[in-house]
């Protein structure tokens, strides 16, 4: 006890303790995560972790409901199905006919009825209360609570036990998981930089290809572990092959890591500056990625040419493209831009579906910047997702690029259990085109002309 009161010895002891624990920490890290990542082996820690968490969440939700009942507070459950009853959508024609059916007169000439306005009025107000599009640009709501205040659940200190549990969760997530993950991510990124540069120096092309694949997969595995991502790949026999393009629905930039974990892809995108730019340049040294300058992006022909050149070369890996053009919240698939479907090569569709219970992966770019987003990702419990590789598709005779794109989109939506929407993801930032309104006006004028039936 005497030595603890002496300040010098005390601080030395502290330092010893600190250095020992850091060494232990790093060793554990190395053994349990990096080595398996390099070897491609999974110990099964993550699965155990997730099952335990699930049990805790269910218990927590039950407790909340019980306590709320006791205190006679109305516990607000998020309505994941919306505010209003969704009736099967009637066409404009049917809607107006139905309206007029109650006024039982038939005329032989174009007839306008004062009541017609009710149809548009009701549809308009319904869309103010709940519409299909704007809600896709914010994170979806959960049925059970996952001990994160950021997920959309009311948490007002209903019970002491739950508050304690939540506090414990915060400690674990920010004190243990976050530093662990940041370390892993840093390791993964530096490895990719160093190793791809080294491999780029090798003279032999075959050797370069061989090693590139290994290096890439290893680094992506480390990144996946740094997010504690549990990915289930289905139908791996349909994995994209060389000389084609791989299209997938877009929820977050992490999609790239999720897919690249299981195969080598060529990425396509804008050339950035800073750290991301460095990573991009390093990656290009050992495998062919397509990075565009800001000015080149606008030139659609240039983009199309570089794409077709790449797919024509059968030794090059498939290109990974996200045709939606923006991040959607993983409940629906929005319009696919036709550019990638005009090239005329084989398309390998992939559906990615995240389970938001352990951490919502959706990147709401209008709310969070990239750093903030990554921080949130690394302080969630885990990222759980399923990836389905769909059979390859080709453009058929007499099908134009838009129809082909829609066909692929429908296949992805069906497999992933997502809603297939015709809307453009660009509506996140821009307003609807006048063409849609004209369409409505056209339909209505047809009704007026056809009232005799």
């Amino acid at each position, binding site marked *: 006890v005497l030595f603890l009161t002496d300040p010098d010895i005390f601080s030395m002891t502290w330092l010893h303790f600190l250095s020992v624990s850091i060494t232990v920490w790093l060793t554990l890290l190395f053994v349990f995560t990096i080595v398996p990542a390099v070897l491609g082996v999974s110990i099964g820690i993550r699965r155990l972790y997730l099952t335990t968490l699930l049990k805790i969440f269910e218990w927590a939700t039950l407790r909340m409901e019980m306590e709320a009942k006791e205190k006679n507070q*109305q516990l607000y459950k998020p309505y994941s199905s919306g505010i209003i009853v969704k009736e099967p959508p009637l066409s404009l024609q049917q809607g107006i006919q139905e309206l007029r059916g109650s006024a039982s007169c038939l005329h032989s000439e174009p007839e306008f009825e004062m009541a017609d306005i009710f149809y548009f009025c009701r549809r308009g107000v319904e869309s*103010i209360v709940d519409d299909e599009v704007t809600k896709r640009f914010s994170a979806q709501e959960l049925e059970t609570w996952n001990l994160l205040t950021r997920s959309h659940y009311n948490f007002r200190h209903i019970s002491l036990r739950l508050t304690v549990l939540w506090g414990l969760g915060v400690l674990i997530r920010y004190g243990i998981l976050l530093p662990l993950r940041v370390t892993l991510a840093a390791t993964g990124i530096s490895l990719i930089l160093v190793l791809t540069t080294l491999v780029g120096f090798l003279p032999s092309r075959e050797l370069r290809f061989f090693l590139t694949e290994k290096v890439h997969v290893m680094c992506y595995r480390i990144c996946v572990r740094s997010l504690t991502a549990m990915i289930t790949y289905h139908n791996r026999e349909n994995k994209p092959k060389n000389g084609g393009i791989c299209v997938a629905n877009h929820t977050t930039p992490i999609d790239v890591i999720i897919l690249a974990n299981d195969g080598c892809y060529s990425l396509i995108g804008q050339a950035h500056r800073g750290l991301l730019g460095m990573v991009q340049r390093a990656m290009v040294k050992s495998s062919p990625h397509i990075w565009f300058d800001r000015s080149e992006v606008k030139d659609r022909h240039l983009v199309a040419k570089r794409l077709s050149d790449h797919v024509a070369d059968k030794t090059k890996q498939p290109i990974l493209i996200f045709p939606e053009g923006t991040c959607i919240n993983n409940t629906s698939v929005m319009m696919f831009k036709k550019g990638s479907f005009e090239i005329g090569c084989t398309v390998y569709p992939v559906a990615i579906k995240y389970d938001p219970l352990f951490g919502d992966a959706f990147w709401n770019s209008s709310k969070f910047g990239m750093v903030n987003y990554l921080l949130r990702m690394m302080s969630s419990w885990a990222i759980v997702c399923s990836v389905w590789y769909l059979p390859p598709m080709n453009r058929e005779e007499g099908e134009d690029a838009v129809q082909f794109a829609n066909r692929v989109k429908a296949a992805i939506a069906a497999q992933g259990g997502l809603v297939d929407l015709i809307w453009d993801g660009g509506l996140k930032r821009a307003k609807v085109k006048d063409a849609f309104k004209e369409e409505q006006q056209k339909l209505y004028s047809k009704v007026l002309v056809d009232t005799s039936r």
Partner: protein
Amino acid sequence: MGSNSSNMNHIPDGQQLLQDTGFSAAQIIRLYERFEFLDKDNTGHLRPEDLETVPDLDMNPIGARIIGAFFPPGKETLDFGSFVRILAHFLPADSNRTRAGAQQEPANSTTGKLRFAFQLYDQDRDGKISRDELLQVLRSMLGLQVTEEQLQCIAERAIQEADADKDDAISFDEFRKSLEKVDIDHKMSIRFLR
């Protein structure tokens, strides 16, 4: 992210709205969430631009008029109370609980709904739908799909049918009479989930 209220205390006028309109507490909480969602800059008020971000409304031929119904002339901002009171017009008529001492006719009665629809036509709020106002509505709903003559023709017929006292305009009573065969409650109601 919406409000994390499990009760109404965080909602402005919450209790008052519960009494005045026919909405249940759960519905009001849900509407408040929607309100906050539409209120992108978190000022506690909506502006016309906030409603214009809804694509379905933007492509509705009378979208601008509907937004106008929420923002009568002179009013630039919409608070949550007014938002709910206007939406209350669209509750089914049978959802009123019996309240002792209800001051005025509830918004979701047939008359209330008719009045809402009437105001969509009668933009200058003079109590009558003039020929001009009718033409404007028709132009919105039909756009460039019909010619000017066809438009005049349709408007003429509509006025002739409804205008009982021949003053070349449609008053509220004439409006109501011309719609007496229409099931207004059904057509102007939105089925809110309980």
